[in-house]
């Protein structure tokens, strides 16, 4: 059997723009061999370099994200760095973690046709191939729809449809199971098993569908890959990432005994998918969030969770009803200063060139503290959230940016926080730590998530959204 991919002693570090440069190795002495036709699963914690690895294999790093690369990377016996990404179209296809990074066109069919146009495929054949792939991933109705209007799960399927479109034997799949419901997970697993080429799956969570489905299992950690028996790998990986949530008992400070509530509030939710024609109304018969509580709001993608959060933190007006803080009506403006909203994407909340300035800005409205007190507070906060004061936020890893976002809100010191999809892209351990810090002064927390196991571990109560109504879930732990 020939080796399709052979990485030997591969080390890589991104170019560091800070002065003085602190070199952090992303990959260090990494070895990986993929034999033709084999299926490999590599488990990797978030920010462990799995996206870098997948881009490296496709020839896009270090061409586009500058850095130092050493070692040998052979694909079909040829050094990858000696070839251009466009030469590899017929060798490998990458399904990236974030579909938004890979989508190019304004309709789904044009999207799928693009690589075939590059290959010079005649129009009639191209049209057959494109329609065929769309049918396989149940996207025919979306053929002339813009990917920008589709939901996360639908976009993921569009990206997966490339596997059936581009005739490449090697599949590199970076978190392909994210955003898919169980039915599509099974379909994808089946497609991987049936593929008569080579498959490399990189994932940060081990899910039931993986059991026994792959030929090789491994862990990517500290820049290197260890291959082993499935059972051992899974246990080792659990030890690496998981930690139980330890509740912080506190409430010595001012944020105790507050309650945010509303009854009979309704608001307009923009259509969740192109297939629904009109926006629909979401009803909230009764909702309460008290200090010190962790409450979760669980629901599938597009059910209106984020829309509810936007109303709850005062960004959007409700259509009817109002919110009460300790039984007093609160205006939208006051709501936005009572409830802190941590957007799912931390990049929306990064404004300034260094961690220090970003954190200090949170305190700029505070007249009760002296400049020296503020500086000390910023330094202390950075330490709590494992941040370097001089780092440049935009080039930090996703996990670090997420921690910076939490630190900013920690300094704002709101009595309530909404955490939108906090658990995606970071380890449970990091998420747990951020939550305990945020509620260490008694804040009430609303967790928005589609991951029921995450919410079950933490929350005391839980709301769900079904048929356009936000309801409290009965029979909680």
């Amino acid at each position: 059997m020939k080796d399709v991919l052979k990485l030997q002693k591969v080390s890589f570090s991104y170019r560091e723009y800070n002065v003085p440069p602190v070199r952090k190795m992303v990959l260090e002495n990494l070895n990986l061999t993929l034999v033709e036709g084999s299926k490999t699963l590599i488990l990797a914690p978030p920010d462990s370099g799995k996206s870098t690895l997948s881009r490296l294999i496709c020839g896009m790093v270090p061409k586009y994200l500058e850095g130092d690369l050493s070692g040998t990377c052979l694909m079909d016996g040829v050094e990858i760095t000696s070839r251009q990404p466009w030469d590899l179209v017929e060798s490998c296809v990458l399904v990236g973690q974030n579909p938004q990074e890979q989508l190019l066109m304004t309709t789904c069919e044009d999207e799928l046709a693009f690589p075939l146009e590059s290959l010079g495929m005649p129009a009639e054949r191209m049209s057959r191939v494109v329609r065929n792939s769309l049918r396989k991933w149940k996207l025919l109705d979306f053929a002339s729809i813009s990917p920008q209007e589709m939901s996360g799960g639908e976009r993921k399927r569009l990206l997966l449809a490339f596997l059936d479109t581009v005739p490449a034997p090697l599949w590199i799949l970076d978190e392909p199971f994210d955003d898919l419901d169980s039915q599509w997970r099974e379909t994808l697993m089946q497609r991987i098993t049936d593929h008569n080429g080579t498959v490399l799956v990189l994932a940060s969570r081990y899910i039931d569908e993986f059991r026994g489905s792959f030929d090789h299992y491994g862990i990517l950690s500290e820049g290197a890959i260890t291959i082993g028996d499935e059972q051992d790998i899974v246990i080792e990986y659990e030890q690496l990432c998981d930690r139980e949530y330890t509740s912080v008992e506190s409430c010595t400070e001012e944020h105790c005994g507050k309650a945010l509530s509303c009854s009979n509030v309704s608001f307009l939710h923009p259509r969740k998918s192109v297939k629904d024609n009109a926006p629909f109304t979401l009803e909230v018969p009764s909702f309460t969030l008290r200090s010190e509580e962790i409450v979760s709001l669980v629901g599938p993608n597009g059910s209106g969770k984020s829309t509810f959060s936007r109303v709850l933190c005062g960004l959007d007006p409700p259509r009817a009803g109002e919110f009460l803080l300790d039984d007093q009506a609160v205006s939208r403006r006051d709501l936005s200063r009572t409830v802190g909203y941590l957007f799912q994407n931390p990049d929306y909340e990064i404004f300034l060139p260094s961690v220090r300035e970003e954190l200090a800005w949170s305190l700029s409205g505070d007249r009760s503290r002296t400049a020296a007190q503020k500086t000390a507070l910023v330094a202390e906060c950075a330490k709590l959230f494992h941040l370097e004061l001089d780092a440049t936020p935009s080039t930090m890893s996703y996990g670090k940016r997420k921690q910076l976002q939490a630190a900013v809100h920690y300094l704002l010191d709101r009595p309530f926080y909404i955490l939108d999809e906090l658990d995606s892209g970071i380890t449970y351990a990091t998420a747990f730590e951020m939550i305990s810090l945020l509620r260490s002064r008694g804040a009430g927390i609303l967790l928005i998530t589609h991951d029921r196991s995450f919410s079950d571990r933490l929350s005391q109560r839980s709301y769900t959204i079904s048929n356009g109504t936000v309801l409290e879930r009965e029979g909680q732990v």
Partner: protein
Amino acid sequence: MEKTNVSSQKTALRIALVAVLTAVVVVFTLMVRVPTPLKGYISLCDVVIYFAAYLFGPWAAAIAGGLGTGLADLLGGYAQWAPLSFIIHGAQGLLVALIARAPISAGVRGDAPFIRMVMGGLLGVIVMAGGYYIAGGFLYGFEPALVEVPLNLLQAGVGMVLGIIVSKTVQKAYPPVRSLYW
């Protein structure tokens, strides 16, 4: 393996750069606009044009500026202005960058000298306000077209000041911007 020259290696990055800057111009034109009686609105589009001119040079600024404002006019319901905006803002971006980045040879990363940024910027303000004055003169008379000259001067002037500031803050906030080149 075939030989590829440097220019073909850069093509994808150039296309990506111009396309994204164009989209930003459209968004800034349509999302931050103050309605005015004449040309419809004043907007923040000049900030992005100056930003592109100072950091990425004449071609990127001309294409993104012209295409972006032209598309914004189409989408915003001012189709008759699209070809004029394309030419005027295109010329604005081109000239600002030519003057501001003249000492920097093409395709090089680097910061334009401050004094040149101001000189090029002022020329850009004149080109933009003058261009719309002349175009307006032919379309609906030179006297009425005078009304919008101060508004255009204001829009382009604010654009220049913010453009200079933002071209510095972006380099600080996102150092890898220097690896993007035309």
